[in-house]
C-alpha cells in the first residue's frame, strides 16, 4: 500500500548516525549509501509530488544517481552496502519509469492520495453512474460490433469498403477524443500543482474520471488500429 511518508522527518545514518532525509539514497553528512528509502518516488529525486515535471532534469538526475549507486563502486564495500547499491538502483529505476510517463505519473500521484485505480479495485464505485458515461458506452459498443463485423468479413475473404471507411472515420474521431482527454488532464495537472487542498481534491476526482475515459478510448483505438492494419 502506498502512503506518503514525510521525507522531511529525518532518519539516522547507519554509518555516522547523522540525521538525514528519509528519502535520501546517500547520507548528506558522510555520503555513505543508505538502505532503500521508504518514501514515495518523487522524493527519491528530491522533488515534491507534482504533475508538471521537467523530464530532462529528471533524466539528468537519474544518470547522476545511477552513477553514484553503480554496483562497481561498491565492490569492496560491506555486504550491506553492496546489497543496497542493487536495491537502491532497482528503486531508482522503478521511480524513474513511473514518473517519466505522464499517465503512470498521474495514476501514481492519485494512488498516493488514496485513489483506488486498477483492475483489482474495479467495481467498488459501481453505483456511481458518473464513472461510465452512457453515451460513450453506446458508442464503444457499436464500434466493437462494427469491428467484429469487419473481422469476420475479412476472414471470409471479403472487404466491406463502406465498413472500412466508417472505421477509419471512427478512429479519427476517437483519436481526437483521446487528444481532448489528454489536454484536459494537463489542465488538471496545473490545477493540482498550483492549487490548495480543496482544489487538489477536486482535480484528483476529475483526473480519476478522465483516466477511466481514456482507458476506454485507448482500448478502442488500439482495436481499430489492429483490425484496420490486419
Amino acid at each position: 500500500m502506498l502512503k506518503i511518508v514525510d521525507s522531511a522527518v529525518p532518519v539516522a545514518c547507519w554509518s555516522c548516525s547523522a540525521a538525514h532525509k528519509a528519502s535520501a539514497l546517500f547520507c548528506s553528512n558522510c555520503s555513505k549509501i543508505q538502505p532503500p528509502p521508504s518514501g514515495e518516488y518523487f522524493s527519491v529525486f528530491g522533488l515534491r509530488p507534482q504533475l508538471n515535471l521537467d523530464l530532462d532534469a529528471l533524466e539528468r538526475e537519474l544518470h547522476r544517481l545511477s552513477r553514484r549507486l553503480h554496483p562497481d563502486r561498491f565492490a569492496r564495500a560491506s555486504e550491506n552496502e553492496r546489497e543496497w547499491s542493487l536495491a537502491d538502483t532497482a528503486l531508482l529505476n522503478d521511480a524513474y519509469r513511473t514518473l517519466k510517463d505522464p499517465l503512470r505519473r498521474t495514476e501514481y500521484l492519485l494512488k498516493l492520495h488514496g485513489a483506488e485505480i486498477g483492475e483489482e479495485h474495479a467495481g467498488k464505485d459501481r453505483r456511481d453512474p458518473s464513472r461510465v458515461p452512457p453515451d460513450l458506452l453506446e458508442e464503444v459498443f457499436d464500434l466493437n460490433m462494427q469491428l467484429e463485423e469487419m473481422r469476420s468479413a475479412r476472414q471470409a475473404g471479403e472487404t466491406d469498403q463502406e465498413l472500412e471507411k466508417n472505421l477509419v472515420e471512427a478512429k479519427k474521431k476517437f483519436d481526437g477524443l483521446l487528444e481532448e482527454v489528454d489536454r484536459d488532464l494537463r489542465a488538471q495537472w496545473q490545477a493540482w500543482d498550483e492549487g490548495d487542498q480543496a482544489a487538489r481534491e477536486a482535480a484528483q476526482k476529475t483526473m480519476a474520471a478522465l483516466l477511466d475515459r481514456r482507458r476506454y478510448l485507448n482500448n478502442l483505438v488500439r482495436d481499430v488500429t489492429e483490425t484496420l492494419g490486419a
Partner: protein
Amino acid sequence: MAYSDKVVDHYNNPRNVGTLDKSSQEVGTGLVGAPECGDVMRLQIRVNPETQVIEEAKFKTFGCGSAIASSSLATEWIKGRTVEDALTIKNTDIVKELSLPPVKIHCSVLAEDAIRAAIGDWKKKNGVAETAQAAVAAK
C-alpha cells in the same frame, strides 16, 4: 493467471450470444461497462408479459474471458426465472460458480449490473413499479 475450467468452457462455447429486438415491448436491454478494464457488456431479456418469466436471454460482451464467462453464465441462470427471481442473483454466486480470482471479481459485478439494467429497462418500458427490494436499495 489460469482460468478455471468453467470459465474456459463458457469462453469457448458461450451460451446465448446474440441480439434481441431492442424496440420490442417485451425486451429489456442493459448496457454496462467497467471503466477499469474497458469491458462492455450488453444483456437482453425477453419477458412473457403474462407470467413475467424471462423466456429468452441474449448477451454480447467485448472483454476478457472472465467477463464473457460471467455474462454467458448470467444468461443461463436468468432464463426460465421470473424477473423478481432473477434479481436475487448476486455477483458472489457467479464468482463461486466460475471460481473467479479476486482481480476478476469486477467481471461478475458487471454481469449482475447487466441483469439489473436489463430488468430495469424492461420495467420502465412496461410501467412496472420498482420492487420493494429496489426501493430499499435506493435509500
